[in-house]
């Protein structure tokens, strides 16, 4: 549900329960007890009501954006194929 924001851990407080995260140049102290394995500076996490809920994977995000970018490419490829059909109603129609 609800409002959870991506933030980057900038430092861990002694004791291991709290960390400082940064979201668009704003810093907040949050609890990191829900993260297993324990949080490390530099990691991106999802923040909700002052707690880190999960890690955010930059690799998965990149992969996802790549798949989204490919949606357009697939469509272009299909349009080109359409253009090569002969004696077909679909020729010349927008895809």
């Amino acid at each position: 549900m609800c409002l959870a924001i991506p933030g980057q851990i900038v430092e861990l407080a002694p004791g291991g329960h709290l960390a400082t995260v940064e979201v668009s140049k704003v810093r907040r102290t949050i609890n990191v007890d829900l993260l297993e394995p324990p949080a490390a500076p530099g990691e991106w996490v999802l923040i909700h009501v002052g707690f880190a809920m999960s890690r955010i994977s930059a690799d998965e995000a990149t992969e996802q954006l790549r798949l989204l970018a490919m949606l357009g490419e697939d469509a272009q490829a299909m349009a080109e194929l359409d253009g090569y059909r002969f004696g077909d109603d679909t020729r010349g129609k927008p895809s």
Partner: protein
Amino acid sequence: MATLTVPGTSTFRDAQIDMAHGAGGKASRRLVEGLIVPHLMADAVGPLNDAAYLSMGDAGLALTTDSFVVRPLRFPGGSIGDLAVNGTVNDLAVAGAAPLALLCSLIVEAGTPTEILRAEVAAMGAAARRAGVRIVGGDTKVVEHGKADGLYITTTGIGRRDSRATLSAGSVRPGDRILVTGCIGDHGITVLLARGDIDLAASLKSDTRSVYPFANALIEAVGSSLRWMRDPTRGGLATTLNELARDCELGITLEEEAVPVRDEVRGACELLGLDPLHIANEGQLVAIVSADATEEALAALRRVPGGESAAIVGRVDASPPRTVVAVASYGGTRVVDMLVGDPLPRIC
């Protein structure tokens, strides 16, 4: 604005006055229109403005008053003293008047350390000098402990109307453009963080300042192509533009990405679930300018020190009437409403 009711008839139905009635949004408007105006200003016509226009012979005057209540009294970028001077100077400026003089009334809570009062009076003096306005009189009262959050300040200002400016909501036309003088949301977020209720840290400060240099620059640059101005204080840019939309009965389209917002304000708003458009500003003005004068107006604003972030943020349309719509870069549109009560952070 709809015509006002019969003198003395109050349409205000709330049983008690709540904080929402002072937040600057819809509830405030209901209180003013439904209770205060019918009793005090029943023969007035036209939209409610922040400043009143009076004439004394050939001289056109603008008169305005405002009360300042803020917690904490001091915050990064300023204090209640700055707000009290700049706020009233700004109301005169956006009415197209050159500020002449202020009166200031202080209500002090008994037990307030003298140093606090000294600091605020000094702040007011300094702000008045910066704004080029004189404080020519005032009043001081002391109330019992627990009654005034330390200090309340009311300032009343008088200014000389600039005859080159013909400002009214009625002169706004479809096709006119909307400009702002700089980044929005700085003041409200600064004060919220300064209260210390939430563990957020950001290097932000209030934008409190006189906007008279900007108002004057616009009048000089484009004269009567300047239709209307206002300072978007409580309730933010969204509330101010909604009031305009209502008063001129036209539509307003904002380009979301064109509205200048600092990263820190954006970050704080995302974390708290707030909309920067609803956050108070104390050092900005919104101006409506005819389409052909827009570039010149923008250049004039940017030439004023502190106007580097001035931007064109939208335009006036014929429809949908009385409505403010924000358009995202991918074309999605949403209605931006007036603030309902105080902006409350959310978790959901």
